[in-house]
């Protein structure tokens, strides 16, 4: 396989949520999402109920992918920050540790400068957590611990999904 499987464990999930909740408060943001580059939502904090998080995750990843394509065309590795300004709400999108996307939605109670500043600090913490997560998944794979939940599924389990 070209890419290792993305796995999330309880411990790191809590750490991640702690960091983005802190960012939510410090940046005076409305909502914060973490999305993987393939468009899958990792976590979200704040007023998440107001948004269609699945669609948001998929479109953000599409946006990052398209901008990444543009970057390569002009000889850049990637554009690590995108900012979209709306009438009320703004979107600050940044790439964390080269592998996940941090989305901050904020309004006029905050400012771009504040968000950028806080995002920078949170990104460093998140990068550390994701590095540990990748190492942990690799170690587990190497040690061959058969904890994978799907190792023992049967054909019946699969068929039942479609019944």
């Amino acid at each position, binding site marked *: 396989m*070209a890419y290792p499987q993305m796995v*999330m464990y309880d411990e790191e*999930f809590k750490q991640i949520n702690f960091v983005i909740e802190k960012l939510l408060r410090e940046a005076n943001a409305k909502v914060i999402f973490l999305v993987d580059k393939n468009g899958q939502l*990792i976590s979200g904090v704040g007023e998440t109920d107001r948004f269609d998080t699945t669609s948001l995750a*998929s479109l953000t990843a*599409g946006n990052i992918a398209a901008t990444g394509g543009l970057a390569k065309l002009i000889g850049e590795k990637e554009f690590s920050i995108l900012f979209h300004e709306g009438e009320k709400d703004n979107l600050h999108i940044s790439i964390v540790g080269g592998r996940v996307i941090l989305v901050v939605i904020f309004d006029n109670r905050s400012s771009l400068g504040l968000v950028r500043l806080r995002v920078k600090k949170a990104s460093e913490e998140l990068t550390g957590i994701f590095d540990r997560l990748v190492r942990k998944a690799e170690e587990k794979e190497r040690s061959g611990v058969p904890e994978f939940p*799907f190792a023992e599924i049967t054909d019946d389990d699969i068929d039942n*999904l479609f019944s």
Partner: protein
Amino acid sequence: MSFINYASREINCKIVYYGPGLCGKTTNLQYVYQKTAPEAKGKMISLATETERTLFFDFLPLALGEIRGFKTRFHLYTVPGQVFYDASRKLILKGVDGVVFVADSQEERMDANIESLENLRFNLKEQGYDLDRLPYVVQYNKRDLPGVLPVEELRQELNPTGVPDFEACAATGEGVFETLKAVAKLILIDLKKGR
């Protein structure tokens, strides 16, 4: 690349519908959307031109149910089929877990099918994937139209490796769920092996 979340007990997989322009990829997703219970689906997103041709992708999230206590979610994507959108197609293949190749059964579209299939193989390779090792199914669409090629002929050209293949008419829904089920099953079997 599926995403296994032990914290929320979810597993997410990405399925991409590939094929030449106007072969019915978006129609496949629209039918799945129409026929799926509201609680099992999210919003369908289509990034299309004013003439309803896919510009970037269509996206449909489906929650199929649970396996061994894990919520199983499939994210269905289509690529833009028109030849000149190749850069976008490459992006959408990133992180793919399973591929559906939708072929247009009409005789005059045979060259377009072959070109698109070669393009799929090439673009996957560029991302480090091998089509022969991915969960992969083929759908012969538009079987209801006059002037379609016999399935045997299509199979010979488009499915030399003998992956699961299905006849379909996406507009009426015939074969749509059979195709989706087949690729989803292959993905889950692949996950079972733990790769």
